[in-house]
């Protein structure tokens, strides 16, 4: 909401610069076969008005950080090592009281980190500290760590939904952008597509997109349409190119949305199934021409 307030004022710009241009579609992908371009049918009548649809690409962003690649890990380890070698000395007496338990714990952990960076021989045991003292220090530090709950395991980075292949869960594929896809029956066959719907008279496209999303996927979720600009457009190929009668074009404008809370609950009469899918998984489900129209909109990460 806040960012929307911010942007309303950014739209105030001097007139003239942009408005004088002829309008055309931003990222137009035509799915018509190339043969029709060679021999255009002779148009006797004017084509009827295009049938416009607004679709929402509903996105759940990554919730877990990406796992670095082997190269990245090696790079980070090397840079961390240089940094450790060059950094200014840590002001131990500024942060810790002399001889306190916290200081002991910190020095032990620091020794461990140095060994990891510079090899096992780097920080040898201090000869002036007796073995009993060292053992007592270690026991005290372990006790402190236990009290602070440091031994507790972190949440796993892979969710159960990934293991059980639950495509409807919003917790799946935490490291990736996932998108909502619906399965419907159109023209006698099952197809997968984004939530979409028609535009009513006098309605703005982004408002239609929001309304259609809720009409298809229920009121049980909190969503936010990012921009009033469509982020892509897809023109459906006419069913029979042979007939000379001009057909109405079917144009779908895509809008990006984020799901903030809730879950999709599509109407079972119209929608047979839904799934939250990554870009690569979407490619395996949708039609080839539809994929050509949407592939550049979706995120690889």
């Amino acid at each position, binding site marked *: 909401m*806040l*960012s929307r*307030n*911010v*942007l309303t*004022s*950014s*739209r*105030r*710009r*001097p007139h003239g*610069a*942009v408005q*004088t*241009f*002829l*309008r*055309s579609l*931003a990222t137009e992908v035509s799915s018509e076969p190339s043969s029709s371009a060679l021999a255009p049918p002779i148009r006797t009548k004017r084509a009827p008005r295009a049938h416009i649809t607004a679709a929402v690409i509903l996105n759940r*962003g*990554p919730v877990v*950080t*990406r*796992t*670095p690649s*082997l190269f*990245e*890990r*090696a*790079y*980070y*380890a*090397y*840079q*961390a*090592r*240089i*940094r450790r070698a*060059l*950094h*200014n000395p840590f002001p131990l007496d*500024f*942060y810790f009281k002399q001889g306190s338990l916290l200081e002991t714990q910190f020095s032990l952990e620091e020794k461990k980190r140095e060994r*990891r*960076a510079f*090899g096992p021989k780097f920080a040898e045991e201090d000869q002036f500290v007796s073995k009993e003292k060292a053992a007592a220090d270690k026991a005290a530090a372990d006790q402190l760590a236990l009290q602070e709950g440091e031994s507790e395991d*972190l949440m796993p*980075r892979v969710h159960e939904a990934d293991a059980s292949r639950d495509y409807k869960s919003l917790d799946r594929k935490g490291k990736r*952008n996932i998108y909502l896809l619906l399965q419907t029956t159109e023209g006698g066959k099952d197809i997968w597509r984004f939530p979409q719907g028609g535009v009513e008279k006098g309605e703005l496209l982004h408002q239609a997109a929001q309304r259609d999303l809720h009409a298809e996927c229920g009121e049980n979720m909190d969503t936010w349409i*990012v*921009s009033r*600009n469509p*982020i892509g457009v897809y023109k459906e190929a006419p069913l029979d190119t042979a007939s000379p009668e001009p057909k109405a074009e079917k144009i779908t404008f895509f809008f*990006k949305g*984020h799901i903030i809370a809730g879950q999709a609950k599509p109407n079972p009469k119209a929608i047979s199934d839904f799934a939250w899918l990554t870009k690569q998984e979407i490619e395996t489900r949708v039609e080839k021409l539809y994929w050509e129209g949407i592939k550049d909109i979706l*995120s690889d*990460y």
Partner: protein
Amino acid sequence: MSAVASSTTRSVVRFGRTPRITRHLRKNKRTQLPIPQVPILTRQFAPCRFEDHYHTTVADDAMYMTYIHESGPRPQPRPIRLTYDPSDPYTKNRYNPPVGGQQLGKKPPPPSRPDNVVRLEKISLHSMQKDALSSKSNLLGLIMALRAVTGESYKAGGRHTAEGIELVRGKKSVGGWIRPGVPVGAKVDLKGQAMYDFLDTLVEFVLPRLRDFQGVGLPPQSSSVNSTSAVSGVVSFGLPPQAMALFPQIEVNLDAYPKQYGMHIHFVTNATGVGAQNRARALLSGFQIPFLRK
């Protein structure tokens, strides 16, 4: 780094033996330490959560929100006035006035392209301490606080482009207030990983716990869109002294500091042209900095 440590598939921290130094290295006269032949710089040393968030989510959204559609190249800018033509008998012996006028607030933003999507370039922090005028040792607490908050120190990691914590000295002589050359404050410029880590700390720990903080104030709707601040793509606000205690790096030993210090924060983005500050605000709201119209 926990992911790095936990994954046991292949070790990336075995670097082998240190190479023997065969060539003579010059030594630093003061420290007697060898000076390496090449400047050694440290770069990013851990994955950065907020930077990833920018690239996976915020960049796309910012591009869609700030996109202005243009078909074809832009027309040439209108000539400001007719060019002076000395062969024209009308202008021949007339005065040729210089072209004047402030062009700053009139420049349109660059065309929307993937390479100029609004992004954060640097965060600049600075603070002035008036009591440093009486004794410059009063600046030590501030310098230590800035070092703790940002993780930067003087020429940290051998870097020379970013100077770490810098002293700010007076430039002018104003009676009873400031004299030239006197240290009065400290500043630090953050870029890259340090910048995103500072932003992370700010929005996760400091702003949510700051009392009576509703959001960064927006200028009134009627304010000029052509002012220098509105077209420069910088968002600035200040943190009160109470906010310093909320940084976790300072919270652990707050009583080690003589007092609490406020600071000014400037978020510098690559946005230019008309509406640049609004685009910068849209970017920052993607990083969860709240804005409020009063």
